[in-house]
């Protein structure tokens, strides 16, 4: 999933590109959320105490609806305006990766059966989480629910991360939210992580700024993409024996994959026979996305009766809790959102720091007030 070890590279090389913020500081922000990734998380994480997925009486899974419903409400309650983006067709280059995932799921299925045979509860739990797959039905149900809730969603032609990135780049939204680090490789200016995590986990939101990453690594966007391919992405194999450390060094020294291939010791680091790195690079730099200008993102009033009908009568949710949730949705759409000083006064980057004896370093932005 995503880019192998990119978080660590960024953490080591440009720590000031990552800022941790409290969830409640994101009021008033519009964010594009990678829906498929979130639904996958919900299917894994939203469970009963015995580790079983939530289901209706007839055994249909409802973990994803539960997740989408309550986590979206939590965001709206905190003034965040979410917009979900669903995956379209996977790019052909991803078929290798998808085949691997299918293989892993089969393996997990087999293990699960064995575990059930033996009655090992811990193993059953472990492997049942590994067999999780987001089906088109899950997606369709989530879209239906979002429609009723008045939360906008976008159907991407291809990868959802790429579409999220495009929306953020076009300033349609403040940031792209995904756990997938390749959202940055698709040049999302700002990536938020942990946004759809449960409140109980108390995870702060990590905000990663692409421009700071490039600045910190001293790479161009093309070099950054090449580095990500070396680290290992979903679209082509990586070269054996090249880890994060060496990937950064190689790009620093040779500037591009072409140059690296020319000089690389083929015996020590065998380049895969079929290595479509250039196609992968093109996929990152020019992904298939809808033009953000043609997308209208609008938040509307929730259809209370529709939600109750769907969640309570069809899916067996508690009516009381659903109604309370919908009330929160409706209320927060009506109230005015808190403005930020940044939108009235412009910010300028800070001066390079003078080294000093003091130990603790806190980085803050500079602000200049307009005269008005």
């Amino acid at each position, binding site marked *: 999933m995503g880019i192998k070890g990119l978080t660590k590279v960024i953490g080591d090389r440009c720590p000031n590109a990552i800022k941790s913020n409290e969830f409640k500081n994101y009021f008033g922000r519009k964010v594009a959320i990678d829906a498929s990734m979130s639904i996958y998380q919900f299917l894994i994480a939203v469970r009963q105490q015995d580790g079983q997925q939530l289901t209706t009486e007839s055994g249909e899974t409802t973990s994803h609806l539960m997740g989408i419903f309550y986590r979206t409400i939590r965001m709206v309650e905190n003034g965040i305006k979410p917009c979900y983006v669903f995956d379209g067709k996977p790019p052909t280059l991803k078929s290798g990766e998808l085949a691997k995932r299918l293989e892993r799921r089969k393996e997990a299925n087999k293990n699960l059966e064995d575990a059930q045979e033996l009655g090992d509860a811990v193993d059953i739990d472990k492997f049942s989480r590994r067999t999780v797959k987001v089906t088109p039905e899950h997606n369709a149900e989530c879209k239906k629910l979002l429609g009723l809730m008045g939360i906008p969603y976008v159907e991407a032609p291809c990868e959802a991360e790429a579409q999220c990135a495009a929306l953020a780049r076009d300033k349609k939204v403040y940031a792209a939210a995904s756990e997938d680090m390749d959202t940055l490789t698709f040049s999302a200016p700002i990536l938020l992580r942990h946004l759809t995590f449960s409140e109980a986990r108390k995870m702060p939101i990590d905000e990663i700024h692409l421009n700071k990453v490039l600045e910190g690594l001293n790479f161009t966007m093309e070099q950054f993409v090449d580095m990500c391919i070396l680290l290992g992405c979903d679209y082509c194999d990586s070269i054996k024996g090249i880890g994060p450390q060496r990937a950064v060094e190689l790009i620093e020294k040779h500037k591009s994959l072409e140059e690296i291939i020319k000089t690389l010791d083929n015996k020590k680091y065998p380049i895969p026979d079929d290595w479509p790195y250039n196609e992968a690079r093109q996929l990152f730099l020019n992904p298939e996305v809808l033009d953000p200008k043609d997308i209208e993102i609008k938040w509307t009033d929730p259809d209370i009766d529709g939600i109750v009908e769907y969640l309570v009568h069809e899916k067996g949710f508690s009516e009381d809790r659903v109604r309370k949730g919908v009330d929160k949705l409706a209320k927060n759409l009506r109230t005015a959102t808190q403005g*930020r000083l940044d939108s009235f006064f412009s910010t300028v980057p800070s001066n390079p720091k003078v080294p000093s004896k003091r130990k603790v370093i806190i980085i803050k932005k500079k602000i200049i*007030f307009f005269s008005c």
Partner: protein
Amino acid sequence: MFEARLSQGALLKKLLEAIKELVTDANFDCNETGIALQAMDNSHVALVSLLLRSEGFHPYRCDRGFSLGVNLNSLSKILKCAGNDDIITLKADDNSADSLSLCFESPSNERVSEYELKLMDIDQEHLSIPETDYEATIVMSSAEFQRICRDLMVISESVSVDVAKDAIVFSAEGEMGSGSVKLKQNPSVDKPEEQVTIELNSSVSLQFSLKYLMNFTKGTPLSDQVMLGLSENMPLLVEYKMDDAGYIRFYLAPKVGEE
């Protein structure tokens, strides 16, 4: 060398109480004209800007401009060790200060306590704030302003402020009901601290978070009067003046409706 001796130590204690909830770490920028501080809260909704003029200190010495990066909570804790009547002296080495020394002397000079506060590097924030001509400028009792915020907090999290020619109306609407407080202009009241004066170019109507306003009113002990500056679609200014010693200004971004 930096040295500043403040005969009314209580002033510094009150100042810290007024800002420490809003901002955790900040730079005190010192130069020959005085000590200034500017910082935003974490969510970038509010900003505090304070100035202590050199005239307020006896003596005041600052050979060159430099900044003291301070954890405000720690500083406030140390200042709590000073008595209200104590004389407070701040000292630091302006070349390579890694700590700020504070000395508290009791009025009778019989008790002298000294503390050292470790400093931090806070990437320098510089803000240039122009004097703005607000569409509405209100001067009123600071205690009254605090009371209005506290009262309306019962009703809602946000307050609408409407200023017309001769009155200012604070109103709130919430789940349990609504409430409003109207203050009429009354420049001729005997007690100057109870006066309400309104200077108006055009009427304004803005909405603000009461939580932040409540935070600002922690500045109430610093001054009998508070000045509010409002303009449509601009941050609110809340200013407490400390006579000649300086001022503390809070800025708050307004709440905005659906675009």
